[in-house]
């Protein structure tokens, strides 16, 4: 295909054709590597990774040719993954998936089924015959729900406290500073374990205890940003035009604090996904049979991982890809918003 392209007259420029060919070849390799049962596992992995590399390279060239040199393939791949995951989470109840939590319904299903990427169990089954794709998607739902709730709560509470502390300073600032410092002084995992022993391991409680982790960082960032802006003359100007303190905080300071806070929030999501998975792995988060990525990985404890690596690798891959995607998107957001605030 790539050999013919330069000779025949096509509408697209040759580099685009080469790039498309690369991407397609990569996809073919990926599918071949993943679905061919005769290959041994390391060979499959090698072929699949090569396929991914080729695909990303090709897609990057296509994107650069079509959308200009600023095209960032990793960002778009990350965004695509997150959109795909979000859609899957929303529609998971209506998707034709295998059983995800009722062990009684899967007595006839194969146990420790290997991922075939086709058939009824595309990502295989676990020791009880439960479908891993279904479990991963339901797990994604609780993981993302928990971390998003925690980030939203933490951002709102931490951001507001930070603005108030940064604007009023003095005693308010000292009290808030003391509180955030003491919260930061407690090791996060130990704080979570302590909270988990007291609170019932339900979605709301896990989310609230995780939000405690985000609050100190948010308070510090929003306080620092507020202090920087509160000394600018536009705040004095607003005061000199008769604006109340509440109005100054809401209309003058909040819009300026919002951008840095939001970019920290995106990065925080990935941190909290990992924190939630750690809690579940330790058995302190959402309890089985309800699936989460953490408790799915925990099923690989003992000799199971050696015999059936996919039990751990499937939820691990979901976890890795999601955290990676959030980091890439968060980094992009930070760059964009930071450079804009510098320009202003």
């Amino acid at each position, binding site marked *: 295909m790539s050999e013919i392209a330069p000779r025949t007259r096509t509408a697209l420029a040759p580099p685009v054709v080469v790039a498309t060919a690369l991407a397609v070849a990569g996809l073919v390799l990926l599918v071949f590597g993943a679905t061919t049962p005769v290959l041994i596992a390391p060979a499959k992995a090698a072929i699949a990774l090569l396929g991914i590399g080729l695909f990303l390279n090709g897609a990057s060239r296509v994107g650069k040719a079509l959308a200009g040199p600023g095209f960032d393939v990793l960002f778009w791949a990350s965004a695509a993954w997150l959109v795909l995951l979000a859609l899957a989470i929303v529609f998971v109840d209506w998707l034709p998936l295998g059983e995800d939590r009722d062990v009684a319904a899967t007595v006839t299903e194969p146990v420790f089924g290997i991922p075939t990427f086709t058939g009824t169990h595309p990502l295989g089954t676990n020791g009880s015959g439960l479908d891993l794709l279904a479990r991963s998607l339901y797990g994604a739902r609780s993981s993302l729900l928990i971390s998003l709730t925690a980030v939203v709560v933490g951002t709102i509470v931490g951001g507001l406290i930070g603005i108030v502390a940064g604007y009023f300073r003095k005693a308010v600032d000292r009290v808030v500073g003391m509180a955030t410092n003491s919260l930061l002084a407690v090791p996060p995992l130990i704080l979570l374990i302590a909270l988990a022993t007291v609170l019932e391991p339900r979605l709301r409680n896990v989310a609230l205890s995780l939000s405690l982790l985000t609050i100190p960082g948010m308070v510090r960032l929003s306080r620092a940003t507020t202090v920087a802006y509160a000394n600018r003359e536009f705040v004095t100007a607003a005061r000199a035009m*008769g604006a109340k303190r509440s109005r100054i905080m809401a209309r003058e300071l909040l819009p*300026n604090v919002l951008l840095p806070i939001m970019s920290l929030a995106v990065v925080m999501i990935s941190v909290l996904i990992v924190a939630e998975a750690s809690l579940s792995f330790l058995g302190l988060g959402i309890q089985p049979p309800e699936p989460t990525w953490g408790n799915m990985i925990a099923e690989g404890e003992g000799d199971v991982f050696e015999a059936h690596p996919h039990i751990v690798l499937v939820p691990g891959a979901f976890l890795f890809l999601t955290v990676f995607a959030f980091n890439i998107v968060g980094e992009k957001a930070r760059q964009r918003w930071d450079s804009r605030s510098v320009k*202003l």
Partner: protein
Amino acid sequence: MGLPERETVTSAPVPLLQATDVATVFRTPRGAMRAVDGVSLSLARGETLGIVGESGSGKSVLGRTLMGLITDGPETSVTGSVLLGGNDVHALTPAGRRTLWGTEVAMVFQDPMTSLNPVKKIGRHLSESVRLHLGLSRAESRDRAVDLLCQVGIPEPARRAGQYPHELSGGMRQRVVIAMALACGPRLLIADEPTTALDVTVQKQILDLLQSLGEELRMATILISHDLGTIAGRTDRVAVMYAGRLVEHARTAEVFDNPRHPYSRALIASIPHLDLSPHTLLPAIEGRPPNLLNPPAGCRFAPRCVVATDLCTTQSPALTGRAGDDTGGAVACHHPLGAAKEATV
């Protein structure tokens, strides 16, 4: 203190602004800093007053104290009284002061780069205070914003109203800041070094704009500046400040033609002129302004003054009018220059 000139210079029966013996002291960890120390001023409706002095002489602090932005509190002490349209600014509650700000008195700030909120559109800067004070509807306030932009000479006001501050040049931004101050029709405008951050060519435009707006709207203006050139010919009267005190206060032409305080004369002498031959040394004032944490006894200018005597270092001169002077000028000096000249002649 400073009473004689009020009756003569002020034509209106009740002055718009009457400040009596205003002192602003900041309590710092290193001691009390007397930024403004016993200043009395008055301003009639539609009158313009220039306040000049070098950096750190307390001009801006005086402006903010007159407006009530700096008030008596745990870290500052404000004494004396500031009557604005009959209200004592410093006796009002914070809510009472807020109703004065914008409608009675407004301020134009020094740096148009920081006095606009980077994330708010130009139109919203103007419409918000209009809605707050005049209770206009959203659509009415938008029209008012465009009118205001038009009034301060911004071309394409409707398009500019939808832009963010960073899309405007420095001069345009300062016009927006002036429009903000004008938004609710104040009777007194305090312009705190409105042209310091601008290009020389733009400076003149902004000063002309302030002058014409003041005449058009019959608005009293206080123009604070360290640059005598911006004050010359644009104000009715000039008050020269040194180390927190008024040292001279007279009609603008009088100060420029016939300065009576040695400091005023030295300030005017240090303005460069185009007709000076190249490499002429400018007469600069020797020494540095005094430390306001621990000001010298007597006249504060005495350590740098060429005509200072022992009297000057021990006794502080009061701001008094000269006998036989009907223009209302006043000077705080034991050895005013005009008097010395008369004595020698």
